[in-house]
Each structure stands twice: as C-alpha cells, then as structure tokens.
C-alpha cells in the first residue's frame, strides 16, 4: 500500500481529535462541537485538564528558552497539534531570531492549520508524519531542509507519548530518534501519569476512558516508565519532575494543584 502512514481513510470531523480538544482546553476555538463535547466529558472527571494543558505550554516555553540559552537553534516538535499561541516557533524565534522549527503531527487537520499559521515563515515548517515511524519524520523534506542532524537539536515530545500504546513500541521510536541526534541535543518531554493528580485514580480514570472511547487511548505511565524514555540522555537539572517544579519563573506554590499532574523533564545526549 502506498497510502501515507499518516493519512486516515478520510477526514471525519464528526470524530473528536486530541489536537482540537487540547486547543479547547487552552481556550481556543479551533475545534468543533464533537471535540468540545469530548473535552467537557473528560473535564467532568478531571476538571483541571485546562490547567494541566496550560502547565504543559508553560513548561514548553521555559524549556525552549532554556534550549536557546544552551545555544540550540533547531527544534523538532513532534505532536505539535494546533498552535493556538505561545508555540515553539514564537518562543524560539522570539528568543533567537532565525531559529529553525519543524512541527510534526499525524492529524491532517492540525497539519493543514499549521501550514496556514506558518505561511510566510521560511524558518518553520510542518510534516505530516507519525511518531511511530521515526524514519519517515527524519527523511521528510522539511526536516532535511531545516534540521541539520550534525548539530544539536531540541526534540520536543510534549504531551504526545501518552497517546502511544506499548504495542506500538514508543520506547523504540524514541530511541531511534535519539540515535539520529547529534551530541548535545536535548529531549524535552512531558507525559501524563496518575502520579501528582489531585484526585483518586478511579476519578482520573474516567477521563482516560473518554479518550479510550474516542479511539485515542490515553496511556498513563508511572514516573519510572516515563524515565525510561530518557535512556541514553543525561537528565538536565532538576530531572524528571512535576511541571511547575521544572526551572520555574515564579513560585510553584502559586500554581494550580492540577498543574502538578504528570511529569516533565529535559535530557541531553552525550
């Protein structure tokens, strides 16, 4: 079959999409009623989902700035979704004009939207590809054009790995990407977990079920399991921690309790 791996049989906007649900959490209107319905249902179980999403965005922003501070000027953001605001290219290019950014998503609507947003930005592009097939990402034209794999890259896997089931070998995919990166590259990662959620797991499990029902299973992993994604990386201080604890700009105590759900970390290849 020569159908691109990312291309679904058809674009069915009557099926909820995790990118558009995420956008809804972030107050955006890049979504349809089915997405909002699913989001509202998940929020019935886990009302803090918007806060968790916001914390992800805030962490990413800090991590990108950190990467720029480390001298990195190329960013590969896999699972970029629908860039509502505060996207990697805004942050990175804000901090370092001319920084190269490639977004990757397997949701064709997200890809089309990114293309619209990035129109006229020569230093940023988007690839329709799947994290489960790293080779397709690395071999894509935008990556070849904008990312020099002989120099350090910041690889962002923000809020994506918890959508890859073990059967699809997320560890293998992450390792394959790692092996393609030059020394000094950074892995920026967040992952959902029952740990840190200010609710009993049974409650949070309701939200997980919602994602299961929309055929985008949400895989909650333990800190230990998440740490394994950093195999071959040296953890950057302060290691794998709840998002507000990662190099905060403001006192973490001021943060919403939901922001502490799941883990975030940055690793550096030797």
């Amino acid at each position, binding site marked *: 079959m020569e*159908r691109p791996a990312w291309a679904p049989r058809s674009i069915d906007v009557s099926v909820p999409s995790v990118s558009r649900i995420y956008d809804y959490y972030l107050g*955006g209107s890049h979504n349809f009623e089915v997405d909002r319905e699913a989001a509202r249902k998940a929020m019935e179980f886990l009302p803090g989902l918007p806060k968790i999403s916001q914390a992800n965005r805030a962490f990413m922003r800090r991590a990108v700035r950190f990467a720029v501070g480390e001298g990195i000027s190329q960013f590969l953001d896999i699972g970029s979704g629908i860039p509502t*605001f*505060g996207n990697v290219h805004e942050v990175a290019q804000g901090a370092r004009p001319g920084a190269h950014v490639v977004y990757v998503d397997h949701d064709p609507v997200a*890809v089309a939207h990114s293309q619209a947003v990035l129109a006229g930005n020569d230093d940023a592009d988007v690839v329709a590809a799947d994290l489960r097939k790293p080779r397709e990402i690395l071999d894509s034209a935008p990556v070849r054009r904008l990312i020099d794999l002989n120099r350090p890259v910041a690889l962002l896997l923000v809020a994506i790995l918890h959508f890859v089931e073990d059967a699809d070998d997320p560890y293998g995919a992450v390792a394959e990407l790692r092996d393609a990166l030059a020394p000094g590259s950074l892995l920026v990662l967040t992952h959902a977990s029952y740990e840190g959620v200010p609710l009993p797991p049974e409650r949070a499990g309701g939200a997980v079920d919602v994602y299961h029902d929309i055929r985008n299973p949400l895989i909650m992993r333990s800190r230990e399991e998440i740490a394994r994604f950093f195999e071959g990386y040296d953890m950057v201080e302060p290691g794998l921690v709840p998002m507000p604890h990662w190099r905060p700009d*403001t006192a973490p105590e001021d943060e919403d309790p939901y922001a502490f759900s799941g883990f975030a970390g940055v690793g550096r290849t030797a």
Partner: protein
Amino acid sequence: MNAEPDGPQDRLRRFVTIWSRAVFPVTTTSSTRPEFEEQLLPLARRLSRALRARAFDADEGRAVGAALVEAHCTDPEALSRTLDCVDAYLVLYCGGDADHEDQRARCARLQHAMAAGFAQALRARTLAEQEAIARAALQAQGVVAQALHTTEARFRAVFEGAAIGIGIADLSGNVLQVNGALLRMFGLSEHGMRGRNVREWTHPDDAPQTWRLYDELVRGEREHYHLEKAFYRPDGTVLWTNLTVSLLRDADGDPQYQLALMEDTTERRLLNLRLRYEATHDALTGLPNRSFFFERLEKALNAGEGQRFGLCYLDLDGFKTVNDSLGHAAGDRLLVEVADRLQACATAPGEMVARLGGDEFVALTTGPDTPRKVDELAGRIMNALLAPIRVDGRELTVRGSIGIVEGPAGERSPAEVLRSADITMYRAKSAGGNRFELADPEADARAITRHGLTTALPTALDRGEFFIEYQPLVHLGDGSVRGAEALVRWLHPQHGVLGPDRFISLAEHTGLIVPLGRWVLEQSVRQAREWRLLHGGDEAGPLRINVNLSPCQLTHPGLVQDTVEILERAGVEPDALCLEVTESALIGADDDLLKPLRRLAEMGVDIALDDFGTGYSNLANLRRLPVSVLKLDRSFTQSMQQFPADPVDLKIVEGIVSLAHSLDLAVTVEGVETGAQAEQLRILGCDTAQGWYYARPGPPERLHELALVDATG
C-alpha cells in the same frame, strides 16, 4: 516614570497587580503572572486616562476589552473578574482628585464599553478561529482526498484492468459494482448487471454446498469460500467459473460487503469434457468405447440388490469379407451405419450401446426387469440389421451373431460377464450366425476349458507334459504284431490325461502343431529304434511305427527335411515309418501339396490314408496319391461287432479291399473290438488291424510284451 510611593504611578501599579492576580488564574496564557501583569499595565493606563479625560471616550473601554481577548483572557470569567476589579478599584486608585460621583458614572460607562469590546473581540476571534479550523479541515480533506484519489485511481485501474472478474455485492446480494472482465464473462452490459441479485444466479449444476457456503458468508460466519460454479448467460449458454467469494468487513469488524473473484473456466472445462469424451468414445462411430462401456458395466454390476443387467454382444457375420473385398473405407462406412442403427435400438433409460473394437458391439440394459428387456433388445438389434446397408452404391446385407448374458448385479465381474458374452456370441456364430444365443454356464465352462488349454499349450511342450502311447497293429493273417500307432497324450496339471481330440485342433490353431508333431515324430522314431534293437529283424520284417501328420504339418515346408533328419539321427530306416494323413487333408490336394509326401514315399516311408471313407474321396484320385496303405474308418467295422454282420457293410468293405489291393495298397482297419470282427475282416481280405480286441494304447513296454507273446505264441 514617577514611582513615588502613593504617587499616581504607584497607585496604577497597585491596581494592575490586583487586576492581574484576579484574572491570571482564569487565563490560559503560557506567560507567567508577572509577564501577564506587564501586559495589563498599558491597559490599566488607558482606563485611568479615560476616567480622567476631559471628554469621555467609550472607545477606550472597548479597546481595553478587546485587548483582554488578545492577551488570551478568553474565558468570560476573566471579563467578569476584570469588571469586578475595575468597578471596585479603578476610581479608588486612578480617580485622583476629581469629582468621584462623576468618575463613578464614567467608570460604569467604561465597564459597559469594555464588556462590549470584549464580546466583540471574542466573537471576532472565535469566528476567525472557527473559520481557520474549518479551512484546515477542508484543506486536509483535500489532501487526503488527493491521496485517496491517487490510490483509488490505481485500484480502479487494477479493478478495471484485471483479467479475472471482480464483483462487489452487499450482504443482501445486491450487486453494487462489477468490473469489465466480469461483464464480458457474463455477456452483460453494465446496465444489464444493474439491480441484479447474487441469489438469482442459481444453476442446476450448483454443488450441494454452494448456497450453504454463501449463507454462512453473508451471516458473517465464514470469511471466504472457493468453488466451481456455473452461471447462465443471457443467451442461454453456460459460463463456468472458478469462484472465490470473500467477506469484507468494516473498520469495526462488522460484515459489510461480499467480494467475488471469478475466473472463466468454460473453455478449459469444455476441453476437459472433450478430452473425456475422446477418451471414452470411439472416434469412428461416436459410440462409447470399451473403457466407457466397462465403466458403465461395472456400475451396473455394482448396483444394489434387486438390480439386474442384460448384455448383448454383437459380432457382424462376414465383416472381414466386406473389408477384404470392398476396402477399409467401405468397411468403416458400414460400421458407422451399423452403429447408428444400434444406437437407435437402445434409447431407454439405463440402456447403452458401445463399440468394443472392430465389428464388435455391445448393448447394455439395466434395471429390475432385464430378462425380458435384453431379449427385446436383441430382437430389436436383429431387426435393425435386416434392411440392407448401402455402401458405395452396393446393397450390403449385414448379419450378426449375438451372445446374451443376463443376471443379477453383484455376482460377476465385468470381465467375466464379457467373456461369457463373447463365448456365447461364438456359439451363435458357430451355429451358423444371424442369430442370438443365451449364455449357458456349461457351454461357458467348456469354452473356458478350451480357452485355458489353448493358453496352456505353448508351455506344456516345454514342461514335458506330453507323452506318447502306442497301439499295436496286428497282422490279420497270422496275428503277429507288425507295429504300432503313436498316439500323443497330454498330462495336464489340472485336467489329467487328455486325448488328442481335446488339443490337436487347438494346437493346429495356434501353430504349436508343428513343434509338437516334430516332437512326436522324434519320440516315435526313437522308440522304433529301441524295438528294432530288442527284436532285431524277424521274418515278418521290422516293427513299424505309425505317426499322424496333421494338415498343418503337411504344408509345413520343413516336413521332408525334418523327417529325414530325425530318421538319420536315430539310425532308423525310412521303411520303419508310416505317416498317416487324413483323407480330408488330401481332398483337392494339388501337386505342390503332394510333392513332399511323394518325396517321402520315394525314400521308403509309407504313407497311410487315415479315416478312409469318411470324406468324399475321389476314388479315381487314389491312383495319383503317394499312398501305400488305406486305413479304413471304424464306422465300417462297427456293424461287424455282431454276428451276422450287415451284408451291405460287408460288400462295401469287400469292395474297398479289392479296390485297394488292385491298386497295390494294403488295408488296415481300426476299432476292432471283438474276435468275430477280427475273423470277419480277415475273411474279407484286410491286411492289418488295430483295436481294443488286441490292445488299448499303452506304454511302449506293453508292445514289447505283446510282441514277445506273439513271438512265443
């Protein structure tokens, strides 16, 4: 900037801090709160100015409301908290010294304008984002559709270009789509295929499981099946296919469609049928051939209890003559006509006609009532042959001999039945032909023995199963033993001792008579030599040995040479040997045939004319035959066993003896059983005699004893 404590700037900053603290928790910005506060500061300044401006400008309030949306305060709660904040603290921190009552009114109007500005901006942003996502969705759909179109175009090309027929139907059997190859196979237009249902396509040749498999598939109990299936084309012809049907399921695994792949096997099947036809039918007449007939016969013989069969085995009388005189082409045309007529005789169910080969045909009838039916069948066949057959402008009369075998199924093998029919047919033929005979177990047995002997003959000689008995020839004048006739016997492993009447004619047919005859001659001559050594030559001359020559041996070119060699090898004089030839063998004999006999006679070998008086001898012919002895057939002497003998017989014998003697021929009589007979024949002038009165045929030693008795007696 003036930041003196409690100065206007400081008061403004305090307002902004309160504002940002109130709103930040309900924003979705990724900025930090201090950053967010910096974003609000210019907005607070605008509000402050609007509050204190000489002329009130509601647009400032609207602009601030819109800016909130810009700063990602899209949650209505952010507006609510902002208005609360403005209502409570704007006049307090930014009002300055002016009339507070008037500022309160302005502040209220500002809030209205902010709310309107916020709502307008949020509406605009929402619509813009909705439009953006809708456009993205549409564009993505286009991309996917393009990709799908490419793959679909490829699949369509495969679908349309495939050499095998492909069809898709829903689970109710409604045909949804078929490709060109399938339409061509069916000989249908696309229009003709529209609205058709798979279930219409039943065919009488459908295998029993065909529709069961179909039902299982559409119920989702079976993923696919494969079978051979026939379809009717609109023109009534039949399409044979290798059909594979698969169940197509949707993404959820629910049965959705059925997919049929079919390969046109009509031609191949026809070829197979043709090959099968050719393998089972006679090329000349088109009748079923031997192997097909055996198949059917076997089936009939294996039919259940109560079933019977009847078989007519037909052989044309004198067909060889037609072939020989008119040529094979004419013979073939005759056979074709005969085949056609026979075919018309066996048209009832369970009946068949086949050609076994040559001019041999069989007709088979089956069922419970074959005794009557086979009789009628044979009658029809005889009738069918009555009318002359016209070949090459000649009217040929065809006759046939039929052997009928009838019996219950389950007793005999096809080969046994056919042999019985063959034997019976020969019986009809030897009874004169143009008739039918019913198989008879005894006649069969005789024929089977005969057949068995024929096949056993060639090896019998090698195995030494033959031996010779000798019957003395006695001189009637003095009763002395003058010699003996050698009579060959066959010690058959199963049937015991068989006389020459049982096998000589078989040996003649098979040609074995030549080596067998030579063997008899050798043995007899050797025996003659032994006697000669034992008895020497007494006054009556040496003991002679009589050996029979069959007609076949007579014409064998090696006769003279073989005989001479045998005599020389044994050291026996030719005059010790008498060769007996039947009268019938010499009837009409020409000089060529007589030449070897004449040669032998010249050498001194006696030639006896055996069974004299049974044929229609031309007495005048006797003169030119190289014969020295007449052996009178036993029929002449039988009446002399009684006394007085038949006077006519006496006259005849007397006449023959007188004739013989006048031609210088000696007379020997056979079958002498009584003393009266012997005496009578002596009186009539016969020279020698043989018969039970003297001795039965026996081993050579017996003759020796007799000769001794004779010598001493």
